[in-house]
């Protein structure tokens, strides 16, 4: 007797499960999340807070906001940020002042923890929302964030 009830139960539960999958088969496109990724690059937009990579924004006259205080370098857990700094003469006061020579960022080592951006007192570095970071050569993951010939915006103090 249990032989027949087993068969009955088997078919019944199979049909119960199939009713779920069958339901999706009929209304397949409703609520579908799949994106046609490489084809939708123009329309694909990441969220504002998405952590793609660290960048240093520059304005029209090639000025950034980094004073070279090295707080991001200290905050970084794995040595992703390296700052090579120098002392320059401040034009207004004539005193010696710290300035950055190169703000080096190793994207290959970055864990996207966000501690450097939290630590920055002048908002000199921010997150970029780009998401295609793979390259053929590892050395191109080391980036210098400040543009050549750039200098710190006047009046930025940490």
């Amino acid at each position, binding site marked *: 007797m249990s032989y027949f009830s087993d068969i009955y139960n088997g078919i019944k539960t199979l049909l119960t499960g199939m009713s779920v*999958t069958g339901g999706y088969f009929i209304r397949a496109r409703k609520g579908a999340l799949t994106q046609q990724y490489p084809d939708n690059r123009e329309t694909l937009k990441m969220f504002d807070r*998405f*952590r793609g990579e660290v960048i240093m924004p520059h304005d029209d006259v090639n000025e950034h906001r980094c004073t070279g205080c090295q707080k991001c370098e200290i905050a970084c*857990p794995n040595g992703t940020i390296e700052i090579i700094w120098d002392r320059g003469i401040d034009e207004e006061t004539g005193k010696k002042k710290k300035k950055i020579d190169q703000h080096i960022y190793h994207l290959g080592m970055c864990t996207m923890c*966000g*501690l450097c951006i939290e630590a920055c007192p002048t908002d000199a570095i921010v997150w970029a929302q780009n998401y295609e970071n793979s390259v053929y050569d590892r050395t191109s993951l080391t980036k210098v964030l400040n543009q050549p010939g750039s200098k710190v915006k006047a009046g930025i103090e940490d």
Partner: protein
Amino acid sequence: MEPTVKSNIKTEEYFINMGPQHPATHGVLRMMLTIDGEIIKNVEPDLGYIHRSIEKMCERDSYQQIVHLTDRMDYLSSHINNEAVCLVVEKALEIDVPERVKVIRTIIGELTRIASHCLWWGVMGMDVGALTTYFYAFRDRELINDIFEETCGARLTMNYNIPGGLMFDIHPNFVKRTKEFIAHFKTKIPEYDRLLKGNVIFQKRTKGIGVLSPEDAISFGASGPVARGSGVNCDIRKIHPYSAYDLVKFEEALQTDGDCLARYKVRIQEMWQSLSIIEQLIDNIPEGDTKVATKAVIKLPKGEYYQRVETARGELGCYVNSTGTKNPYRFKFRSPGLSNLGVINSLATGSKIGDLVAIMATIDIVVPDIDR
């Protein structure tokens, strides 16, 4: 000469490796099986394939930096791991975080738990031979990941907590999206049960397989859904409430059978309870600051501190031994994965190799949590 027939034919035990690259082991875990035919005589897990010495790295890092390392332990409940480290630092510094922080931490923690159980449900179905579950689970988990990505900036390794509060406030869309998700997911859990739980094949693969007695669960130090499937009350959220868990009403998911099906039921129940917790909190997130200002260099007072939280897999304990400097002298994690893995020999002995896959799926192994 006539051929003689051996009358005393015996089977022989032999040794086989399962892993370290077996897909059913959920990562690089090597299981050394001694089997007789298809019956398992002994299981010995071999650990250390992805050991990254996280505890040692904690001794090098400052307390703010330690938080992001815990993302990489149990990556499916990374927010709860972050919370554990932040809570132990706050306990040592005697900081009382604002109510808003507590509530947000609880909501995101419960979302993490749902996401983790969701993934587990999909993978569990796949381990016992149902591929559909995988796609359905990932479809729903994607909505949680979107909430995290919008608020925290990352999908898996969020690093949203800092000692003293949250890194930044929640996104304006957070409440709306979470409510949408709750409404959506409430229709999906019954569907999960209809699809998998009643199925005869699934029942045969899980019912009465891998029975863990409550005594064994306690003596092996199992926690989380593994122990609760055997009827052991061990929910840290109930026993030692942290964050906002003392403000909400919820029931501890308990089953008494102790087999794979019981552990399945516990996790499904937990998803319902997590939804209920989020529902109670989401409408009345208190206003206020999202962080308490701490010193740039956090130095814990000399002494020992311990804090435990309930992750999606069980009890995570953080032990800090501080000598008063900016780095901990010792940082020890009591991870749920390692203790839960300990029961595997007593569960699997006597069952078949195919059952071991189901047992490992219901223990919900995350190897980076075991190896650290």
